[in-house]
């Protein structure tokens, strides 16, 4: 028997719960081990001390409190509300979720759309596109024109085949220096010209003013710095016609002349005379 075993048996020993054999071993160890004898007496001392502890009196009102609590136990419990399975408040998150779903759906709706119409059209075979032209309303036609340009641009071997207006390294909007505009000209056919030399200018001026005598002097144009752009509408049967250059643009290799033709409105009264509207302008080369 070691000392730990001995100590574990102390309460049993003191209560006489050990079997005779165990008691014998216990006694033997007790006599041979002063430390354990010491432990036994210490144990006795401590437990005696514990036994001196007197029970406390009940706190004041203890029994009254207890009576009240027990009386409360007997009261019928207020009927608990049946748990409702459905409450309107529960719908709020559902509405929120639905709303989010709708927004998400709206977002997705735009998601699959092509960024531009031409891109979509490029994928169509040209024949199909051509068919569309016949049947589609004017708006679609406009789209088609764009498409065709894009298509051809995509197919073009040399980029110079193409005119990209409003862009490019040498893009310029020309400012008008001098201009002549009227409805009476010697040039009776519809045409537009760009004149870069004095000789051409002379020729045009003579053709233009051949009905006037004496011929007005050739206006002075410095062709080293300037060039002349002229548009003629051709001979018209009544007044009310007009032509006007609205925009001149020069890109790297081309000059664009944009002009507006005006015609008399249907049913309006116009002067009954032959007119040849024209517009001649002088612009800077660079």
């Amino acid at each position, binding site marked *: 028997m070691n000392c730990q075993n001995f100590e574990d048996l102390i309460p049993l020993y003191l209560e006489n719960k050990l079997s005779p054999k165990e008691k014998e071993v216990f006694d033997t160890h007790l006599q041979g081990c002063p430390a354990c004898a010491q432990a036994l007496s210490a144990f006795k001392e401590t437990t005696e001390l514990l036994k001196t502890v007197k029970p406390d*009196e009940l706190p004041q009102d203890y029994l009254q409190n207890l009576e009240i609590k*027990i009386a409360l136990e007997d009261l019928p419990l207020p009927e608990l509300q049946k748990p409702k399975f459905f409450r309107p408040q529960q719908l709020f998150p559902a509405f929120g979720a639905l709303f989010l779903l709708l927004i998400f759906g709206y977002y997705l709706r735009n998601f699959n759309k092509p960024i531009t119409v031409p891109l979509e059209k490029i994928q169509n075979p040209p024949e199909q596109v051509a068919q569309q032209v016949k049947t589609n309303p004017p708006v679609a036609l406009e789209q088609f024109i764009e498409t065709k340009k894009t298509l051809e641009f995509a197919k073009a071997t040399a980029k110079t085949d193409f005119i990209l207006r409003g862009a490019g390294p040498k893009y310029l909007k020309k400012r008008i220096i001098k201009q002549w505009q009227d409805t009476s000209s010697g040039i009776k056919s519809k045409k537009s010209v760009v004149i870069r030399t004095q000789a051409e200018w002379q020729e045009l001026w003579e053709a233009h003013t051949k009905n006037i005598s004496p011929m007005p002097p050739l206006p002075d144009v410095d062709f080293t710095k300037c060039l002349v752009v002229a548009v003629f509408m051709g001979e018209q049967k009544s007044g009310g016609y007009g032509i006007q250059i609205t925009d001149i643009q020069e890109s790297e290799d081309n000059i664009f002349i944009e002009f507006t033709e005006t015609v008399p409105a249907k049913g309006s009264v116009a002067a009954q005379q032959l007119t040849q509207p024209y517009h001649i302008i002088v612009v800077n080369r660079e």
Partner: protein
Amino acid sequence: MPFNKESFSELIKVHSKEIYNFCLYLTGNPNDAHDLSQDVFINAYRSIEKFRQDCAFSTWLHTIALNLYRDRMRRRKTVKFTPMDDEKEFSDKQIPVEKQLEDSELKKKILKSLDLLSQEQKVPIVLKYLEGKSLEETAKLCNCSIGTVSSRISRGIKILRGHLK
């Protein structure tokens, strides 16, 4: 005495002091002892029909008290409350003042030392030496053999002695 709801207040009168003190030894402070012991009686009242009379009513109350106590300790395992001022709580009117003071001081010291023991050691010591139960009863209430109770008591007392010195 019949064990039913009608005679329960009589039962309370008989056992309240014993159970209150038992709870006091377990919890170590009068406030917790008050709450715990009252809960013991309320629980007993609720389930008095289930009392099979195969043990003493007092033992049954002790069992309830122990279960509730273990339950509470489990719930507030991390937090242990030590009351700051419990000087006046241990008053006992029948004993002369000097003796009362001495006893009270000793009791306070013992309760504090008990509180430092583990639950396993504290419960059998309380039952055996403070409540005066037999080793067999203690073993039954602790759900273990008397051999186990013996060794737990012995080790607990050793630690307690260290604290009381």
